[in-house]
């Protein structure tokens, strides 16, 4: 499991796969005020990204990888 769900917080670790998207969507619907930790994330599947873009969660930390961070910032910040 590359996405960890904790109380009010979800953490992406390593590579989040397409299979995680459904769980993520389900969890975000039940935890609309959740924050997202992206720091340990090295890649996420388009499907996961799409869920995040639709859910507008609060991003608590951005990925370490600069290119991923740039991508996610344009995708997730512009939605705010």
């Amino acid at each position: 499991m590359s996405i960890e769900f904790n109380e009010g917080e979800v953490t992406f670790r390593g590579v989040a796969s397409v299979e995680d998207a459904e769980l993520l969507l389900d969890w975000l619907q039940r935890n609309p005020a959740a924050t997202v930790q992206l720091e340990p994330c090295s890649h996420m599947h388009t499907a996961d990204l799409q869920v995040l873009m639709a859910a507008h969660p609060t991003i608590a930390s951005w990925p370490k990888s600069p290119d991923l961070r740039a991508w996610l910032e344009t995708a997730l910040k512009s939605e705010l």
Partner: protein
Amino acid sequence: MNPLLVQFLSEAREFSEAIGNKLMQLEGSPNDQDAINELFRLVHTLKGNSGLFTFPEMTRVLHAGEDLLGMVRNEQVVYSRELADCLLDAMDFVMVLCDEVETTGAISSRHAQGTERVTKALRALMPVFPDATENDSRDNADRGTVVPEGSGILISFEGVPAAARLEALRHIQAGDALHWVIYTPAKECFFQGDDPFHIARQVPGLLWGTVRSALPLPPLAELDTYSCALEFHLLTAAPREELEELFRYVIEQVKIVKVDPEGDSVPKDSAAPPVQVEIAAVPSIVSDEVTTAIETILSAQKQILGLDDQPVWKEGRTRAVAAVLKNLSRGLGEETVVGDIEEALSVSLAAGNGAPLLHWMENRRENLTRRPRRSDSATGRSEPPSRGAATSSVPARGAADPVTEEPTKFGRRAEDNLSSARSLKVDQAKIDMLMNLIGELVVEKNALPYLAQRAETQYGVRELSREIKAQYSVINRIADEMQYAIMQVRMMAVSVVFQRFPRLVRDISHKLNKEVQLALEGEQTEADKNIIESLADPLIHIVRNSLDHGLETPEVRRASGKPETGTLTIRAAQEADRVVIEIIDDGKGIDPKVIKRKAYEKGLIDEAALERMGDQEAINLIFAAGLSTAETISDLSGRGVGMDVVRSAVEKMHGTVVVNSELGKGTKIRISLPLSMAVSQVMIVESDRQLFGVPMDHVVETVRVSRSAVRFIKQSMTVILRGRVVPLKTMNGLLGIAARAKTNADDEFAVLLVQVGGGVMGLVVDGFRETIGVIQKPLVGILSGLPAYSGSALMGDGSVLMILNIRELL
């Protein structure tokens, strides 16, 4: 290896053969549109299938082939022999790749150069290679990578951060080509294993990229996680080829637009340079969308001017409206009106209301919206940020359309399978097992009559004996039918072997500068799979020989009064339980004198043989090892191997090969093979109270010869039969049995006349028995060293019948 890959490989072979056939067919009638379409379809499908695996080399070659054929189909390229050569070459290369995949499971990188070579050769035949600098969208219509006219793509630098713009500006000033990539993944792309985000992250030379949704994403409850609604916008300094390579699997979902700086508008202000871009040949149709956008902007400004909630904000609002209008005008390339706006603004500010600006807007409105759009007009950072959504949705929809117009890829393979023959692909081993089982059943079934006999004679139960016999006849019938049915399963048409000849003949005759027409007859003739497969090599040898040695060059043919184009006929037919294949050419024939001399020179025959050898005998010498009649050794044939290989291969299948030739007229080679090797007919003979089987292929006749008719020439027995001297040998003598041959009551020998090679010989045995069909098992282990026997078979009573290998025996 996974089953999908196995299926792909077997399909690839079929496709490749079909492609070769179609190319041959086109050679005869280059304007056959149906054949071209079919050819295109085949290559297209094969390419699509190859895309299921990570064989980019294969896919690239096929892609090039598909492009080329697409042009042939659209009559942009004329079908030619070079084109066919090139495509055949490419297919050969693909087959090499397939072979490698089959053996090693992957394609090694050493094929990269080959890929490059083949792809280049194919591309070289295309008049206009789809290229970024080409605006000829006609050639690119299929590729989906170049903006088709009227698609209304607008590059919006809106949202591109200043740093990226600066970087872009530097590239433009350095003369690099920048590309704007709009990647709209197909909705169902997740199911195809794509991760668009992953691909986007790999784009080389990325200056800036964003991901957005084409349409506003639905609320979470309605969101379909497995349907991709995103699109990627990228600005990159990478060359187009690299981008195409990266997006090669999803090229139809990608638009790559070259970004051209409009020379004079590259701004000097480096703080936030609004990089003005020109899209190559943006057509005037775009103005529809632009008009809508302008309308939206103008009405928003009117609304703003009309607001009167907070008087203290009025001035700021008025200034903002003026700024928007100025930017809008600049964006539309109308710098001149900026002054007018300034003027209206100062009047408005002085008057304390927005009326003058409003008035100016009303006046300009007509001009702004109706003015014909210049083809080189540019979009700048003209719209206020709040309107960003409107502008960015324009390219989004424009980009999405071509994708949705295309039929979804699901089910494509089903449509492509036009020839959905109701056939089953079964592993040959399973059929072989079935064949072995039925063989055992046939043998076991033969034990029943013996059982019936024993029931009667040994136990004296006649009733039971009769019942067993009745049951036997039923089982016998079913077993026979079953055997026949299974043999039918194994039957294959000779076309399997024949279909490679058009290509072979074409290639060789081109190489030899000979004009040859190939005629194939009786392609539907069927025989056992093993027979058909083992036919392939001998036939290729013969065809090569005919082309190389038999058929003459056009000049020679003309000189000898024959048509310039030689004819090579390969004919298959079924004769009784044998399949006969004839290879006939109308070439120069075989000169027995030349053959004899060559054979003598090579020491194959001695002087005496040279003297008395007849013409037919001499011609048969071509089957002797180490004889070549060609003056020069070519890479095709003439190394003295070939015809002897042919003979041994045919004889291995219990077949015969006969050559007839007439000098100056041509040569006919006739191969006769059994339909099936599974069941062979043998005649049972008795010698010294032992039974032996003699293959019926060898048996000519059975005769009774009176002891007095046997003549002795020195130590050898002979007999004169119908005016011919037939040498006799006793079976006992040949097998080393220390017993004399028995005669019947009339003092007559039982003589089995057998044909061996070209001659007839008599075998003296003790008696003849019936002819039966047996399933011959080869001798294995220590027994395999006994050359006198070709195998063994089980008889119905459980005894073993040894099958004689007559050729070795004599």
